């Protein structure tokens, strides 16, 4: 993992002290709220419905055991004993008091963490594949470049007041687990004809009120030129992005209105001017940062396998966990484990202080002191010996974290919704809970197979409803919460935006509506090997629309 150098440590320490003084001046009345609000937002501090909310950055979703323990400590000491992992691989605390924030930031700084640039019109946390550095299908580990981008984008003087917020995601694998085509910039590892590895740059993706799939801007940018190329994209956006209308201010609107060719011409012109300058990335620097992400000291093991069929007979619940929560590792004898934060009927993405400490202990003991946060609001132990899976599972059972539902219908993404969020129009969590309970039976989940449900409580789409195989958007109509259902969204490399099939449903009707969609899929799929999204693509909207609304 990356470790702060003297510059990083001094910078975060100074910023923490600076914000402590700003809090002091706000409390004493020297600063008005109008003066203070932009300062607190720059430090990740929002004011929500019931209390302040502190959003803490988890760079590219990577945490050490020590860092997760500190998050558990913060949850216990300053909050209500839990934290909420978000769809941008960050963590939020929903109940801190303003006067505790300086101490929280100080605790975070002690483990090389902060809350800077988790809000505001700047470049936000760079997200990536939760299996980075571990996945068997990976072309390159994206984390060294992600770290370089983090350093480049942190307090970038030119990009601190962009037209709107700016989100970058990257994946080093062809199987996109980071939803890169739904980000302002999406980077996918690519190879050129010479076999060199670089980055395909996609631009103008996003969700929100105007969902767009990113367009390919450049099929191959070498590592050494990536910073200059991204700087060029940001400069074009900063210059031409619309500042007159916040709803049209994201780069996706600029790309849509001007066309990808125009944007490409502008970017290339800018790139030609700055290429090879101060943003040239020397191989030595890439090597220096890459050294922080060197593979851990894996043992040379024979390819280990588990007889899952046998385990299922001996212990069906463990067998189900093996079936769903284990991901192939590039090193023989190892695997990555997804720790589900989706207990049946629970709040998606929430973890208690005790659970954080338990996971930190497991990472320390079994996963080279490393763990990940997924954009689907789960945690991952990236590097565990297959021989240790049973011990890990038993510990997860004890911590209440052994739900074997990764990728299944109850592995639901949901934003905090109207229960917490000042922007929301409708509640998300109770809908997720109701669906989870409806489909919670293991046999039912297994029968349905891979099906991603994503729920947002407003059009800002923090719950990624546009890319849910089944997406649910909460709206408010004449004082009532209504839920609009979309079908056919996909966040992967086969990116698709879900289609709205008709009118919305009141909350009580949503589980039945989802069940009708699921039953239609089960009835019409070619075989159990055809997943929901594949069946939808083959069948089209008609049978699903009929399932929801009849023939009318």
């Amino acid at each position, binding site marked *: 993992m990356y470790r702060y150098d003297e510059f990083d440590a001094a910078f975060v320490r100074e910023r923490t002290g600076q914000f402590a003084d700003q809090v002091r001046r706000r409390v004493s009345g020297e600063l008005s709220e109008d003066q203070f609000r932009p300062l607190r937002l720059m430090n990740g501090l929002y*004011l929500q*419905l*019931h209390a302040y909310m502190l959003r803490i950055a988890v760079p590219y979703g990577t945490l050490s055991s020590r860092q997760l323990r500190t998050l558990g400590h913060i949850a216990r000491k300053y909050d209500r004993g839990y934290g909420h992992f978000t769809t941008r691989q960050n963590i939020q605390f929903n*109940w801190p008091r*303003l006067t505790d924030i300086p101490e929280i930031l100080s605790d975070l700084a002690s483990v090389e963490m902060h809350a800077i640039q988790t809000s505001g019109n700047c470049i936000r946390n760079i997200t990536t594949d939760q299996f980075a550095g571990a996945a068997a299908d990976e072309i390159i580990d994206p984390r060294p470049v992600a770290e370089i981008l983090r350093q480049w984008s942190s307090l970038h003087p030119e990009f601190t007041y962009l037209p709107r917020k700016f989100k970058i995601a990257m994946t080093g694998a062809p199987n996109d687990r980071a939803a890169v085509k739904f980000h302002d910039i999406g980077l996918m590892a690519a190879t050129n004809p010479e076999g060199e590895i670089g980055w395909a740059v996609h631009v103008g993706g996003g969700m929100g009120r105007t969902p767009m799939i990113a367009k390919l801007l450049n099929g191959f940018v070498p590592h050494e030129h990536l910073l200059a190329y991204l700087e060029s994209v940001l400069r074009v956006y900063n210059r031409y992005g619309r500042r007159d209308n916040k709803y049209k201010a994201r780069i996706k609107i600029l790309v849509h209105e001007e066309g990808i060719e125009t944007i490409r011409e502008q970017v290339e012109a800018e790139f030609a001017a700055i290429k090879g300058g101060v943003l040239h990335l020397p191989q030595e620097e890439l090597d220096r940062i890459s050294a922080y992400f060197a593979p851990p000291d894996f043992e040379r093991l024979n390819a280990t396998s588990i007889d899952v069929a046998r385990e299922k007979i001996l212990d069906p619940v463990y067998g189900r966990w093996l079936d769903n929560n284990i991901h192939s590792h590039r090193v023989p004898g190892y695997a990555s484990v997804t720790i589900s934060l989706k207990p049946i009927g629970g709040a998606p993405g929430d973890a208690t202080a005790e659970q954080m400490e338990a996971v930190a202990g497991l990472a320390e003991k079994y996963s080279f002191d490393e763990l990940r946060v997924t954009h689907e609001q789960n945690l991952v132990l990236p590097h565990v010996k297959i021989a240790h899976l049973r011990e890990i599972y038993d510990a997860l059972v004890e911590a209440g974290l052994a739900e074997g539902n990764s990728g299944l219908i109850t592995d639901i993404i949901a934003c905090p919704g109207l*229960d917490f969020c*000042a922007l929301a129009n409708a509640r998300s*969590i109770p809908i997720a*809970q109701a669906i989870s309970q409806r489909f919670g039976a293991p046999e039912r989940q297994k029968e349905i197979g891979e099906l991603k449900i994503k729920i947002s409580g407003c059009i800002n789409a923090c719950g990624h409803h546009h890319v849910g195989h089944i997406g649910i958007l909460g709206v408010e109509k004449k*004082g009532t919460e209504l839920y609009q259902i979309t079908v056919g969204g996909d966040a992967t490399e086969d990116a698709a935006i879900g289609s709205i099939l008709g009118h919305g449903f009141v909350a009580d009707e949503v589980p039945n509506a989802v069940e009708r969609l699921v039953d239609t899929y089960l009835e019409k799929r070619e075989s159990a090997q055809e997943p929901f999204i594949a069946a939808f693509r083959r069948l089209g909207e008609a049978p699903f629309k009929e399932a929801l609304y009849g023939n009318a």
Partner: protein
Amino acid sequence: MEILTGNELLSGATVYLDRHGNWVEDINEARVFLTEETEARDAAVAATRATMRINSLETETVTLKDGKVIADRLRERIRADGPTAPVFDRQHLGEDGHVSI
């Protein structure tokens, strides 16, 4: 009918202006401004702003039912009672949270 609501600076807790000019946690203690009391309401808003201690200051329409003050919007009913899922007690004022106009 309207009430004044906001979030207290130090705790962030949801609070309401009561009949005595204190900012309190219980919506049922909120002063209800009638349509003809806009002048008094606006004066309370100005006095509250001068304290610099109440953020997100808003007027909210309410209905009186069985002696209770019921916010018309669901959002406000959730603010008054705390989150519904997962259920948590609402945020409370600290000892240093008293604000009055």
